Each structure stands twice: as structure tokens, then as C-alpha cells.
């Protein structure tokens, strides 16, 4: 435990010295503030913010995760020589870099929301968007870690995979779903479409945003499965649960690779 906190603290100190994270927070601060100033405020701003969040948080987090593994190779290898448990070292490194990133997004977006009074006005919606950004940061930072450890020697390949995975999950995946929906339009597709969307963490976050802001449109759909899924707490709970699984799996996978790796 002492080792863990020590590693985390050390990571934090290095990150703050690098100012990179502060810049990231500043971007969200300026973005949210200008959205609030020039947009309409309230739901309008939160939706724009969630669009940006769904697109960029995964990309930045994943690149940041993989970049860290590549950059601090000597430092990690130095630590590995010390009598420190590997899983403690893994958690220390991972939490040490992902939590500041998460905090940067959440603070950067929350401060303008606070001083424009949206946090008070639309508390639940604001909290949802901020929390989803936080969870996506953790998921994609750990995916970056996994990729970094898997392509430890071949950096180009590692970065390439990062970009391709992001492009696939953020954009192409939904195109494929739409294609499937049109290809098999004759069949009852509701269950299938819900299941498929559950496999993509960005879609999960998007569905949670949609349940918050578009529920009135969703209630216009007459299909029984959708109505039951969207109309009760089932939808939010299932999506949140799946997001939890998405949070656990890459972290655990990263740990497994880290433990077995011959550095």
C-alpha cells in the first residue's frame, strides 16, 4: 500500500512538472466556457460538451496511455529491478497517470459549468457528462497501456493500432451497425441492436447521454423491447453495468500482460 501511494505520488509530481495535463484541462476549460458564452447554456452546452467528450477523450486518453509506456521505459525498467510487487507497480503507474488526466477533464469542464451556474441548474445532467468523461478516460488510458505493453518494441505499430481502434470505435462501428440494420431490416432487430451497441464503450456512453437528453424522442418509438429498455431504469443500469465491465477488462488485461512480460 505504501509503495502504491508512493508511486502514484511520484507520477503526479512528474506529470504536473510536465504541464501537459494542465494544458489538457485548459483546453476543456476554454472550450466549455466559450460554449456557454456563445451557445445557449443549459442542455445545449451540455450536449455540445458531450459530443466533444465522446470524440476526443478516448483518443487523447489512449494516446496518452501508450505514450507514457514508450516514454518512461527506462524508469519502468529501473523500478522493476527494485523489490516491488509487479501488480503494485502496475496499479501505481496506471492510476498515477490516468487519475490526473481524468481530473483534468472533469475540473476543466466543471469549473465553467460552475461559474455559469449550470451545475446548480442541471446538476444531474452535468454530473452525468462529467462522470462519463471520467470513465472513458480510465477505459481508454488502460487500453493505451495494453497496446503499449503489447507492442513494446514496435512503436509505429502501437500508435497505428491506437488510431485505428479509435477510428473504429468512435466512427466506423456505428456505420457498420447502420449497415446491418438496413441489411437485416426485415427481421426483429431491437435486441440485436441493443446488444451490439453494448459492445462499444463509446456507444455505451452515448446511449447514457441519449437517455438523459433524448428520452422524449425515444418514447416515440413503438417497439416493445426498446420501450422497455429505454422507458425504465433497465436501460441506464444495463449500460452503466456494461461500462463497468469495460472498465475492468482492459485494466485486468494490462495487469496480466505487465505481470508476464519479460522486459
Amino acid at each position, binding site marked *: 500500500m505504501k509503495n502504491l501511494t508512493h508511486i502514484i505520488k511520484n507520477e503526479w509530481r512528474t506529470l504536473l512538472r510536465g504541464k501537459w495535463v494542465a494544458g489538457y484541462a485548459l483546453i476543456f476549460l476554454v472550450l466549455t466556457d466559450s460554449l456557454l458564452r456563445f451557445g445557449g447554456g443549459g442542455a445545449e452546452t451540455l450536449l455540445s460538451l458531450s459530443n466533444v467528450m465522446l470524440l476526443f477523450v478516448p483518443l487523447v486518453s489512449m494516446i496518452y496511455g501508450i505514450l507514457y509506456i514508450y516514454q518512461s521505459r527506462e524508469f519502468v525498467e529501473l523500478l522493476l529491478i527494485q523489490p516491488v510487487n509487479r501488480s503494485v507497480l502496475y496499479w501505481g503507474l496506471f492510476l498515477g497517470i490516468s487519475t490526473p488526466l481524468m481530473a483534468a477533464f472533469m475540473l476543466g469542464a466543471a469549473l465553467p459549468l460552475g461559474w455559469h451556474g449550470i451545475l446548480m441548474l442541471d446538476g444531474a445532467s452535468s454530473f452525468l457528462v462529467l462522470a462519463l468523461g471520467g470513465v472513458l478516460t480510465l477505459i481508454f488510458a488502460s487500453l493505451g497501456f495494453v497496446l503499449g505493453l503489447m507492442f513494446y518494441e514496435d512503436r509505429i505499430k502501437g500508435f497505428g493500432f491506437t488510431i485505428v481502434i479509435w477510428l473504429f470505435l468512435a466512427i466506423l462501428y456505428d456505420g457498420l451497425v447502420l449497415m446491418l440494420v438496413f441489411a437485416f431490416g426485415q427481421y426483429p432487430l431491437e435486441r440485436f441492436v441493443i446488444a451490439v451497441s453494448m459492445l462499444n464503450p463509446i456507444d455505451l456512453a452515448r446511449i447514457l447521454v441519449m437517455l438523459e437528453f433524448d428520452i422524449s424522442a425515444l*418514447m416515440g418509438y413503438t417497439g416493445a423491447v426498446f420501450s422497455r429498455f429505454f422507458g425504465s431504469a433497465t436501460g441506464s443500469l444495463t449500460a452503466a453495468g456494461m461500462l463497468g465491465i469495460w472498465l475492468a477488462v482492459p485494466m485486468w488485461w494490462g495487469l496480466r500482460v505487465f505481470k508476464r512480460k519479460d522486459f
Partner: protein
Amino acid sequence: MKQTACIFFTVLIFMTAVSSIEAQITVSQDGEHSSIAEAVSMAMPGDTITVTEGIYREHDIRIKKPLTLVGEGRPVIDGGDNGYIILITADSVTVSGFEIINTGRSYIRDYAAIMIEKASDFVIEDNRLDNVFFGIYLAETNRGVVRNNHVESYDRREASSGNGIHLWNVKNPVIENNRVTGMRDGIYLEFAENARIMGNISNDNNRYGLHYMFSNGGVYYENTFRRNGAGVAVMYSENVDMKNNRFENNWGATSYGLLLKDIRNSTIEGNRFYRNTTAIYSESSSNILIRRNDVELNGWAVNIKSSSARNRFEENNFIENSFDVRTDSPRNNNHFEGNYWSAYEGYDLDRDGIGDVPYRPVSLFSIIIDRQPESLILMRSMFIRLLDTAERIAPVLTPKTLFDEKPKMTRIQ
């Protein structure tokens, strides 16, 4: 001559004496008169009957002459689930300050707490109606005011519940500041001429908050309609003025903030539509001016059928609706101009507050949804956004002539 004068004066004195004795009747549970019906039958036209606090188990109280019934300390008239409670068939009757509960229920007769038939100039004011089949029922009346009443019932089935305030074949009614909850239709109008419906709150009714049919020349201002089973329907009428109302949280596949069917030459102005599945639905309606409304966070802001023509949407705020406009035709017979659309992505180089490129409010995704409803789950995804943007730049599937040429850059205050 002297004799005539003498008789005249005697008669006059007698009359004043009679009216001063009879003008005021008090009904109380332990007093001389303990039944309202009895007091009503012995009263002379123009009398005032004051009913004091207590529970009166009576129904079918028939008022056939001009009277004023006043409740003091809100006396309760309990109909005991039998028939009508108060039936008014005379002009100039006032009923105020009562709590009227438990009417009969029937599939054949419209039992109401207060029924006014073939009468004029009545005032129904400040009553509380609870667990009633129909609340206040106006049939073939003229003028008359229904004000500050509270109607509530608990039957959640559409077929076996009645309307809160029901108007049939009436002229010049004023319906003001009433609250109606849990009825079939909150306020129902059929063949009502020049109705004034103002400041009412009609929430959580099984079917429509306001059901408005065959009623020309009506106005309704500053009413609130929330969470009604099917929202508000205005049908088969002309010259209807709808201003500053609130239509909120009407959810469901067949629920509309405001449903317009066969409406002509009317105005919809300054209303707020918030979180309805469809804010404004229009079928076979024409020459309606829809102006300066706030349409926010609805599923579909406007669903306009091709049978609607020459309607004008001007200076409305369309804010974060899941879909702005839905239509079933590639042609467009209506006019959109100078609205604010939060989804607008254009620019304003000459800085006059008006976007330089037109806004196309029918998105490709809304057409995709119509064809393949399951794709609803892709709402707000990046891929859909890219498709929509591409379609807006070069419309292929969306109506080419449906656009707002002068979209505002900022929200209209």
C-alpha cells in the same frame, strides 16, 4: 288617484318586506334548514343561500331559478356515488366555495358534479371537485364563468373516466384559473363559440389536457398542460388564438404537445414546448402563424404532414430537439423563416445576426428512422452526424425546398 297611489305603496312596502325576509337563507347541519335541496326549493328567485361547514349527503340538487349558493368554510356535498350532484337549468346562478365529491358513474349518462344546461350568465367559482365522473358540465349555455375550481379524479382508464370541464354547444364561455387532474380530458370543448380559456392548469389527465373541436373564434392564453396521455388536440376549428401556454412532458408514440388537425387561420404565439415526444403535429391545417415559440428538448419539434399548407413558422427558438422537422413528402408547402435552430452550423460573415447559408431542418437521420426505426439507437453518434452534414450540404433524400433561408444566429429573446 289617491287610492291608486295608496295601493301602489302598500304593494311596494310588502314586496320589500318579503324580499328582505327571504333574501338570505342559511343552511347548517344543526340549524333550521339542514338540506340544501330543501333550501333551494323554498327559495325565491334572486335569493342567496349560505351553506355552513359540514358534510351534506345529497345529490340531484336542481336549481330552476336564479340563486346564489355560497359555501362558508367549504362545506362538503357528498353525492354518495349517485347521479348528478348540482343541476342548474336557470339563468344567473352562482355556486361558490363548495367541496363536491363522489358523483355517480355510468356508461350511458354523463353524471357531473355541476351540470349547467340551457342557462346563461352563471358563475361557478372556487369549488373543489373530488372523485367525480364529469366535473363541470356546460351544455347549451351562453356567457357564464367557470373560475378557480379544482377538479380531481383517480380513474386511470380512458374509457371509464369523464372530462374535467366539459363544454358542449355553448356560446361565450370563460374558463379561468382552474386546475384539472386525473380526468379523461382536462378541458373539453365541442361546438363552443368564442371561448376564453385562460390560466388553467391541466395535468396528468388520461387523454388530452385540452380537447378542442368544432370551436371557432376561441382563445386560450397562459394555460399549462403537463404529462397528459395524449397532450393537447385542437381540431376542426377556425380563428383560434393560442398564446403563452406551456406544453410540457407529454410522452408517448401518440402523444403530442399540440396536435393540430383541420385548423385554419389561427395563431400560435409565445408558447413553450418542453420535452414532448412531438411538440407540434399538424395535419390538414392551413394558414397558421406559428411565431415566437420556445421549442426545447422535444423528440420531434415539428411533424408536419403534406396535407398542411401555407403555414408560417417565424422567429421560433428550436433548441436541442432530437429532430427539428419531420415530414412525409419531398415537397414543401409551408414557410420557415427567421427561426433560431440550435443545430445550425452555418456562419454569419456580414454580422447581421442572420446565417449566410440556409438551414435544412429535416435531417437525413429522421428519414432513416422513418424507414428503419431500430436505427434510433444511433442517435447523436459521430457517424450519423457526418451523414447529416453531408446531406445538408447536398440534399438528396430530404425535401429540397424545405429550408429556413434566414436562420438566426442567436436565440430570440
